[in-house]
């Protein structure tokens, strides 16, 4: 499912004017607090009516001011996970999960299985008022999943979840997407959280799209570093599982060589995507020896962006792929990192943690 | 056939006993429907399933007659009543006639009111107004009244001592132990207080209804009515 959005709406002073495509896969809508993310998602779901514009899901037009089409909310078949969980207080957790099946007959997926995955099996008979913040949000995610939507709209769904729980749910979303072709529009201000899932990224600011494209373009664009925040800038590489070693490491081949990662749950030959944050990359002019870091790739400097601060962002060519590194200006000077310089990128294997691996699709890679 | 009798609520007790006696004599059950005369008259006009109407005043009986809702020839006055002045204070007991000299104002005291049924609308009030006007007392009293929606409410005000005096029917005064009769209005001071009865045009069994109405003016019925304080009706108008 691919989504086309082109909407305009004046929200008392705040002017929402957003145009983007969300191709099949996981589109991450990223922007600061108050940039208009929720307003966009509400418009797509039909909960906010744009003054003008068009929204279509593949061929299916959901909204079109020109054609006077405005499909009612319940016929849009979009699963919405709200920023606040909005569970039904009069129903048990189980009945919340089964709600969509009850009202629409949709939903062949097994609620128990989804509950198990989300770690809420023991809560099924509980009322919602006694749930903790994270528990409530997990139920809300389950409820939306079980409505078997054509597309899932998730508005900061994991903000109230702890790290291990996030790490469990994200790959499930990925599996879901892979197996059912479920496309996801994922709103977040925490790029690290989902960058590895993203097949497409839309950056929004003050109601307008400032950049949109494939993650490896957007995330490795040194100009986007300020927008994303330095901690979130980084590259996404295509990789193929080459081997699984007995000491718990997996070897992945990338265009520039090989990466060693903690065991990847994918068969040899599988295609993966690996995210490497700019700040996790160290540069060396000579190949370092005797380091605990296992991954050292020969790279060539493509561009060096100097900003206001003491750091510089270095764009690197690694085989067919691009990497970003953030180092201090002092180091750049000392090591003579200039355009065209050949050097080595050092990455700790563990910096690419289990959760940063997404089993990849052709799309967006 | 059984009879449905629409009777003014103020006749309730007496009519109840009359119904029992009639049932004993004829085996015909009587269903008594009690409400204000105006209410009953309107309902009969709207087609209520009444066989006999007993009104507490002639106005509403006339109104129905005009609309051909009654068998005119069956109409008969079955009882009459007297208007009396009642008082809360037992010391005021007196059977003397109320005259132009009776100082009702003084008896009311500085703030007391004379309880009375609505003088422009409810029969007991209309009679009382007529009597007081005839005696020349109305103008002085008209601002000192406590008009009520029915004569029983006026009686209750006196019974509770909320109003020191009231103008009510003699039958009411008789039945209420907390009031005493402080004076009787002369029959000449107001139009005669008559209780007319008649057969309703649409009566299911006009013959039986006619018999009942006739029976009401007979001796047995009159004896019962007398026990409740009603007087024999004067000559029918």
């Amino acid at each position, binding site marked *: 499912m691919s989504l086309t959005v082109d909407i305009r709406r004046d929200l008392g002073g705040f002017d929402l004017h957003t145009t983007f495509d969300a191709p099949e896969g996981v589109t991450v809508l990223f922007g600061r607090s108050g940039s208009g993310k929720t307003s966009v998602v509400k418009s797509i*779901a*039909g*909960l906010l009516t744009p003054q003008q514009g068009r929204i279509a899901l593949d061929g299916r037009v959901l909204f079109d001011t020109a054609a006077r089409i405005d499909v*009612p*909310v*319940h016929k*849009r*078949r*979009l*699963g*919405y996970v*709200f920023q*606040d969980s*909005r569970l*039904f*207080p*009069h*129903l048990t957790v189980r009945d919340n999960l089964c*709600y*969509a099946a*009850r*009202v*629409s007959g*949709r939903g062949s997926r097994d609620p128990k299985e989804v509950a198990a995955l989300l770690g809420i099996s023991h809560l099924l008979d509980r*009322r919602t*008022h*006694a749930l903790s913040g994270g528990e409530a949000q997990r139920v809300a995610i389950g*409820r*939306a999943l079980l*409505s078997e939507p054509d597309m899932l709209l998730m508005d900061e769904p994991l903000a109230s979840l702890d790290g291990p729980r996030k790490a469990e749910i994200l790959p499930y979303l990925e599996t879901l997407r892979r197996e059912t072709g479920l496309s996801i529009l994922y709103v977040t201000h925490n790029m690290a959280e989902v960058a590895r899932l993203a097949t497409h990224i839309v950056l929004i600011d003050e109601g307008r799209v400032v950049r949109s494209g494939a993650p490896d373009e957007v995330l490795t664009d040194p100009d986007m570093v300020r927008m994303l925040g330095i901690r979130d800038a980084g590259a996404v590489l295509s990789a193929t599982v080459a081997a699984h070693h007995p000491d718990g490491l997996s070897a992945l081949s990338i265009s520039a060589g090989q990466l060693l990662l903690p065991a990847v749950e994918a068969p040899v030959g599988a295609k993966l995507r690996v995210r490497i944050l700019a700040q996790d990359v160290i540069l060396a002019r000579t190949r370092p020896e005797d380091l605990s870091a296992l991954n050292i790739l020969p790279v060539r400097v493509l561009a060096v962006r100097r900003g206001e601060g003491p750091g510089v962002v270095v764009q690197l060519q690694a085989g067919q792929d691009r990497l970003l590194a953030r180092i201090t200006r002092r180091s750049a000077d000392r090591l003579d990192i200039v355009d065209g310089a050949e050097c080595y990128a050092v990455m700790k294997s563990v910096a690419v943690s289990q959760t940063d691996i997404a089993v990849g699709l052709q799309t967006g890679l | 056939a059984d009879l*449905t009798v*629409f009777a003014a*609520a*103020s006749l*309730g*007790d007496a009519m109840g006993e009359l119904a029992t006696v009639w049932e004993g004599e004829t085996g015909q059950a009587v*269903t*008594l*429907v*009690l*409400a204000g005369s105006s*209410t*009953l008259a*309107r*309902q009969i006009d*709207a*087609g*209520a*399933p009444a066989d006999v109407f007993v009104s507490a005043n002639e106005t509403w009986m006339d109104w129905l007659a005009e609309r051909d809702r009654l068998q005119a020839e069956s109409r008969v006055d079955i009882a009459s009543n007297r208007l009396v002045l009642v008082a809360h204070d037992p010391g005021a007991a007196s059977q003397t006639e109320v005259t132009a000299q009776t100082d009702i104002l003084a008896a009311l005291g500085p703030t007391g009111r004379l309880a009375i049924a609505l003088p422009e609308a409810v029969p007991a009030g209309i009679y009382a107004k007529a009597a007081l006007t005839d005696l020349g007392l109305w103008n002085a009293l008209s601002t000192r009244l406590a008009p009520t929606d*029915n004569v*029983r409410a006026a*009686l209750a005000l006196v019974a509770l001592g909320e109003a020191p005096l009231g103008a009510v029917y003699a*039958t*009411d005064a*008789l*039945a*209420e132990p907390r009031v005493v009769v402080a004076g009787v209005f002369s029959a000449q001071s107001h139009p005669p207080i008559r209780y007319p009865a008649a057969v309703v045009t649409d009566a299911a069994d006009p013959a039986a209804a006619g018999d009942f109405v006739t029976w009401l003016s007979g001796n047995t019925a009159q004896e019962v009515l007398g026990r409740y304080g009603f007087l024999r009706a004067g000559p029918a108008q």
Partner: protein
Amino acid sequence: MTTWLGPEEWQAVALSLKVSFWATLLSLPFGLLCAHALARWRFLGRDVLNWLVHLPLVLPPVVTGYLLLLGFGRQGPIGSVLDDLFGITLAFQWTGAALAAAIMAFPLMVRAIRLAIEAVDPKLEEAAATLGASRIKVFVTVTLPLIVPGIIAGAVLAFAKAMGEFGATITFVSNIPGETRTVPSAIYAFLQVPGGETGAMRLVMVSVAIAIGALILSEFLSRRVAQRISGS
């Protein structure tokens, strides 16, 4: 007890219960509909509907009864049509008493339900819609369960009002024993005759007892529902 209250009075009590019960039950769907329309719909004539619903509250009951008599009496435009087409007669029947009670109680019922509906968070209804529930299903599966306390409140108010209704009832359907003589009419009959106060007070006590029973039941029910919804 049978010596304390005569068979006629027991008949009035039974009749009042029947009338109030049916008046409440049958007006509930209309009350819900009206309340929902007033709370959530935008339509022409919304204000007129609102006035109509409130009318019986403003008018003296006798006037309402009189208007009912004019409209629903055997000769009345609606009454005669009902009679001719469906064989339904309301005038001077207990069904008419139920109609009068229902109409008098209607504004109370509608207000209670309407307030409850207005208190439901529209965000929950939005969430239900995104899960595929049509407007009607949203109402049935989300709004309705959440307003149960309001419905109970509305129903018990209506029931209590119906138990106490007098003016419109006696004016519309008169005071026919066994058919339309409800407890308040019986009380009225008592109060119209000398010395009837004690009889009247006995009936008052019975209807108070019934009303308290209904109240206790409703409080119990709505407390249970509230607990289910918002926790103990």
